[in-house]
């Protein structure tokens, strides 16, 4: 299963709407980095509105992909993290250090715009 990556100008938009198993998560990591390289994208929004559970492994994959994208020179914003997911991540002791977040897709795009232009 592949997670679709949409191109919008300089940005890439991803909405994760499937149950994230390990394979899908790792495949997504590679797909996103290749797409950044291909399109020369500067900003990425990963929307997690439909994700109802993030365990420590998936959190690590997401944290890693943000770090990898940063290494390539692209900025990533995670959006739409559900209350239940935020609570469990903190209780688990998983910290996504240095990861930018926003309430929803719209604010995520605004944040990217400010960072890239400001």
């Amino acid at each position, binding site marked *: 299963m592949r997670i679709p990556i949409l191109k919008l100008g300089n940005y890439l938009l991803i909405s994760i709407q499937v*149950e994230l198993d390990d*394979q899908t998560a790792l495949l997504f990591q590679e797909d996103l980095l290749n797409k950044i390289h291909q399109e020369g994208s500067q900003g990425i929004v990963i929307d997690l509105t439909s994700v109802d*559970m993030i*365990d420590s492994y998936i*959190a690590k994959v997401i944290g890693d992909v943000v770090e990898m994208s940063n290494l390539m020179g692209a900025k990533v914003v995670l959006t739409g993290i559900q209350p*239940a997911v935020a*609570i469990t991540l903190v*209780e688990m*002791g*998983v910290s996504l250090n240095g990861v930018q977040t926003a309430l929803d897709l719209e604010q995520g795009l605004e944040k990217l715009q400010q960072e890239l232009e400001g």
Partner: protein
Amino acid sequence: MTTQSSVEIGTEWGIVSARQAGRELSKGLGFSSVDQARITTAISELARNIYLYTKNGVIGLEVVNDGHRQGIIITARDQGPGIENLRDVMVDGYSTSGGLGAGLPGVKRLMDEFDIQSNPGEGTLITTTKWLR
């Protein structure tokens, strides 16, 4: 106590099946969405440990009633190598697999009761409970 379901964890697909079973069961019992997330996350961590360290084990899900309240008991049983350093695995950040090391101490915090029994060479049994509030 009646056994509701058990899921074999032989492949990583077993991890997904186990947490889906936990999601359905906890939803059916009336757990809040936050508690559903806690329960499914705990199952995911336990199932992943089985998959990573032993390749073969079973996640069991049971509904329990102590006379006052209902709850859900998760068991993670394997015949793997066992854990030599039980104290270490309960410390945040400890990992031998390159993971975040959040697994077992994280599960303990997400759930209400947590018990681990392990002998080197004989496998591991983890039992953890969440009560319906």
